[in-house]
């Protein structure tokens, strides 16, 4: 292999790895705060990507309607839980966030759908739609189970993944889609050609990681999220609602997922079920990071991306196998390093 090919593969690997890093960070975040292993992370990717591609192609994405439907369900949940002490303020707030917001977004989407809006509007709309789906998803599927065991949450997570994937097929059909590039410029440095899209991937990934770091380090809500992850009871005794932390975590995860999708869909054709595999690679990185370490997850994600790029060059039929086999030595090492523990009791 010559240097040029190696550089190409490295570049390719780092571009993909950056996406896996974003997804891996979201998985670690959600797990730390809510103990949910977020299998549907991949659906956030597909929904974001295909909503963006549909809008750019002048079609109406079904996800906007799904957001409203889920919002109505979330509103019903809120009312049911608060049935014994219904304050007007609480009802109004639930109504605004769960029904008025998605209704407005649906109206805006309907307005823009037919007229191939500019890329920026497509991006913003897709992000908002998927963010709402993430938020309501937590309210409907996970908040009522928040006190249960990791296993129950995992089962719910698998169920949500299957449901969302089915809905994805309904909304976007079995055909793959591609979206327009976020940045369409390009330049060359030596033998390497950098497309605007890959620059956007690097830039947005770095910006997001820095943004998350600032959010967790400096803001009260960021610290509250960390506190919930470190000590749930301690956080509750400080007055921090677990459900609030969960909502923020899901909101961040869905935005990260959708953003990843929007960044990938100009590079690769995505199908309604492509997200699962992409999400799993973020999951591999998160597992290497032990589901707790953000920096280790980010580094592992780059490694996963590079391994994937090289294996698709040398043995493209086996590239997924090779990537997922990375898990085995990691798990083996971790199991040797970790003390034997009894089944977690919660």
């Amino acid at each position: 292999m010559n240097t040029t090919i190696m550089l190409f593969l490295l570049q390719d690997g780092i571009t993909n790895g950056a996406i896996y890093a974003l997804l891996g960070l979201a998985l670690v975040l959600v797990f730390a705060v809510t103990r949910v292993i977020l299998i549907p992370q991949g659906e956030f990717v597909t929904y974001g990507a295909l909503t963006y591609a549909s809008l750019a192609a002048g079609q109406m994405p079904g996800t906007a309607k799904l957001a409203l439907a889920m919002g109505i369900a979330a509103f019903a949940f809120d009312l049911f839980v608060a049935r014994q002490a219904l304050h007007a303020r609480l009802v109004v707030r639930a109504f605004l966030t769960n029904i008025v917001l998605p209704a407005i977004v649906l109206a805006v989407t309907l307005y823009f759908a037919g007229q191939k809006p500019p890329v920026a509007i497509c991006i913003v709309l897709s992000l908002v739609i998927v963010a709402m789906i993430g938020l309501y998803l937590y309210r409907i599927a996970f908040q009522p189970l928040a006190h249960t065991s990791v296993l129950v949450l995992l089962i719910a997570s698998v169920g949500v993944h299957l449901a969302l994937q089915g809905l994805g097929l309904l909304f976007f059909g079995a055909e793959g889609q591609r979206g327009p590039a976020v940045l369409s410029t390009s330049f060359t440095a030596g033998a390497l050609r950098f497309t605007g899209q890959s620059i956007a991937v690097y830039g947005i990934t770095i910006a997001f990681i820095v943004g998350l770091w600032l959010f967790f380090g400096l803001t009260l809500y960021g610290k509250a999220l960390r506190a919930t992850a470190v000590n749930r009871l301690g956080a509750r005794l400080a007055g921090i609602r677990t459900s609030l932390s969960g909502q923020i975590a899901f909101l961040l995860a869905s935005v990260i997922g959708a953003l990843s999708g929007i960044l990938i869909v100009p590079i690769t054709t995505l199908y309604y079920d492509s997200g699962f595999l992409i999400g799993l690679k973020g999951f591999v990185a998160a597992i290497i990071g032990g589901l707790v370490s953000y920096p280790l997850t980010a580094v592992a994600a780059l490694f996963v991306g590079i391994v994937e790029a090289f294996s698709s060059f040398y043995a493209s039929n086996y590239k997924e196998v090779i990537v997922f086999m990375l898990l085995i030595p990691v798990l083996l090492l971790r199991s040797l390093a970790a003390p034997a523990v009894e089944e977690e009791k919660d």
Partner: protein
Amino acid sequence: MSALLSVTDAHVAYGKVEAVRSVSLEVGANQIVTIVGANGAGKTTLLSAIMGILPLKGRVSFAGQDLARLDIEDRVAMGLGLVPEHRELFVTMNVEDNLELGAFRIEKSKAKASMERVYTLFPRLKERRKQLAGTLSGGEQQMLAMGRALMGAPKLLMLDEPSLGLAPIIVADIFRIVTELRASGVSVLLVEQNAQAALKIADQAYVMELGEFVLSGKASDIAANEQVAASYLGFQHEGASVL
């Protein structure tokens, strides 16, 4: 005057085992009330249930409001604070962040003043404010746990075994601060195995045994009670029967 906290006929069960049976107690404004009793008597269980961590059968009202439908976070917002036995600190975060989060439910402007007050009460915390909570000594962690609870400007602070495992000099310090809290208008419900020290600073006291209150009254009277002295204060009187 109605009590700040009043618990009437409370039962708390773990599954089928009743750990607390038919317990009633009151804490007034500007009062230190202590619950003393042996390990396993149900003291911690009772505090957890008052805070909403465990389900409680019976009536609990705080500042005139029934707490039955309120969860932990609502009770915190109402001015009920708990410093649990295991402290439950955010060990990977620094002292200042821990304190800041204690003021999560109060206004930012008030939080600043709260922080100053906590640093005045616990100058040691100010010295260590950039240190991770997990690296503090046991006494400092207890101070931080109390500081964090005080950041939320509670009307009533419940302390669960604040002296457990601490050096006598630090215990004295913590008990001194408890009396200072009362002077500044914060009521304290103190659960202690160190009955002697607790009874010395408390106004009212309850003696708990096997999930029930077997004795209650003025702390000074309880301290003078021979049976209590025999069982909990380490003095042996001839012929004192077990309570």
